[in-house]
């Protein structure tokens, strides 16, 4: 059995008296497509923030690619190969679309010792923008982009860091049916390139189309983990979504 790319053990996070994550265990295999679902306030984003280093977990451990990363900052984890996209797109507003892609190429790929020349930077950037069909908008400002283009920019910027694991936090929120399909296809293409992906999503048809495995968080606790078809029939999961 191959070693997991991500292993979370007894992860706990509190905000004052509120328990956001309660002893969560999660294992992700290399190359896997994992769907993570849960009602609003179930702790999904908190879990992502703890995995990526935006928040520090009080209990438990996060092991990524064989190394415990709890003490590392967010940028150190990104450099190790743990990238994320944000629930609400957070482009660098003063930069063009291409310059947004340059940032991880300079600060993550560059920091790993692969210093890219200006020409290499542009080539790599245009490849990534072509991957998400934004190559025609390289010189535009992010504020000129549509919602789906903004989501694609967010994903392209995360992929520019050459991650081993990508966490897509509600990358399809607010998109139309065809746009959701577009993003799902994009995520599957990225997965086929060897990137392990955790997709956090509320849109169930997207989750079911994408996920090889499904985990469910409710009130900061993992209540189910397994094959998607089995998980959505689990009585605890149905209860959490529809009420007991």
């Amino acid at each position, binding site marked *: 059995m191959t070693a997991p790319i991500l292993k979370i053990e007894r992860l706990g996070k509190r905000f004052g008296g509120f328990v956001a994550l309660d002893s969560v265990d999660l294992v992700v295999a290399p190359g896997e497509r994992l769907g993570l679902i849960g009602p609003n306030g179930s702790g999904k984003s908190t879990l992502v923030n703890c995995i990526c280093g935006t928040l520090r977990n009080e209990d438990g451990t996060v092991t990524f690619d064989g190394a415990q990363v709890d003490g590392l900052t967010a940028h150190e984890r990104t450099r190790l190969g743990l990238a994320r996209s944000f629930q609400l797109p957070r482009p660098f507003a003063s930069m063009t679309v291409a310059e947004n892609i340059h940032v991880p190429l300079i*600060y993550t790929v*560059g920091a790993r010792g692969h210093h890219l020349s200006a020409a290499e930077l542009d080539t790599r950037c245009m490849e990534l923008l072509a991957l998400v069909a934004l190559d025609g908008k390289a010189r535009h400002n992010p504020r000129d982009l549509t919602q789906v283009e903004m989501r694609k920019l967010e994903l392209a910027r995360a992929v520019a860091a050459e991650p081993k694991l990508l966490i897509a936090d509600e990358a399809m929120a607010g998109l139309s049916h065809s746009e959701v399909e577009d993003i799902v296809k994009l995520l599957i293409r990225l997965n086929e390139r060897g990137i392990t992906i955790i997709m956090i999503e509320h849109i169930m048809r997207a989750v079911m189309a994408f996920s090889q495995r499904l985990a469910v968080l409710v009130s900061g606790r993992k209540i189910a983990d397994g094959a998607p078809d089995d998980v959505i029939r689990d009585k605890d999961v149905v209860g959490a979504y529809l009420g007991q």
Partner: protein
Amino acid sequence: MRAPLFILIQLVIATAIYLGLRFFGNDYLFFAGYTVLQFIVLATAWNILGGYCGYVNFGSAGFFAIGAYTSVFLFTVGQSPEAVFPASILPAMQAIFPLPVPLIIAIAGVMSGLVGLGTGYLTLRLRGVFFAIATLALAIVLQTLVVNWSFVGGSRGAYVIPANTVPVFGPYIQYLFVLMLLLTIIALTCARMIERSSLGVGFATIRDDELAAEACGVPTLKLKLIATVLSGALMGMAGAPFPFYIGYTEPGSVFDLGYAVNSIAMPMIGGTTSWVGPLIGAVLLGTLQQVATVTISSAVNLLLVGLLLIGFVIVAPNGIVGLWQSWFRKGAKP
């Protein structure tokens, strides 16, 4: 344009300005010019942290004062080394002191850079108004320390009287003017190099979105510390020649609110995203203030700054450079 060519062009312009002012044979022009140059350095230094990184520093006067009081301290030591050093090292110290002003400026830069580093460690986890208040508090703490430090004059102040003339330059103010010209070149070169480097890209990501910057692998805390050190060091270097310029240094004049206000207003008026902005803002506002001082009154200075700032916030929130860029973009559209 490469950095050596940029420096060369600045040196040519600086030489032309110096010789031009000498041609008029009026020392007042050097006094006024020194003040404008000092504001260019201060505004450029402020802009490295405030403009590039988006961290508004209200403590410019504190860093300026560290530079000024480093000079006062070193000058005072130079006046009476026997009062400071033990007899065993006194002859060596007597040979070293008094220190030349360029060396004092360099030491002042190191001192204020170190304070910048300390300030950074203590305050850079704060953002927005909380960071601004913390930097303002730093200036107040430093002023309290200086007021109670009798060696550098305390609240009564200290005299730093340099020689009347300097070989080659003639009047001392011309020497100080040339030093400030060189500091201006250093500050502008530093700012321009940052802007065009990966450091500048990193600073811009911090200004735009720190969380997203970290997620892209940008070591935000490290970059912010670099910005506070550079900004603080340049502000301190701008303040170091001040005691020699003014002759009598007291806390009220060095910790003057005007330094904090001007070092913010000048980049805001010129534009904060480019090295040109603080330069334009400082030249425009600094010159206007000098004209107002001579023709109306020195008290009108801050009023002038306030009015201009209000006007620019309404008409051109991105400063003159931003206004120029938006006109240029409109003109470029068919």
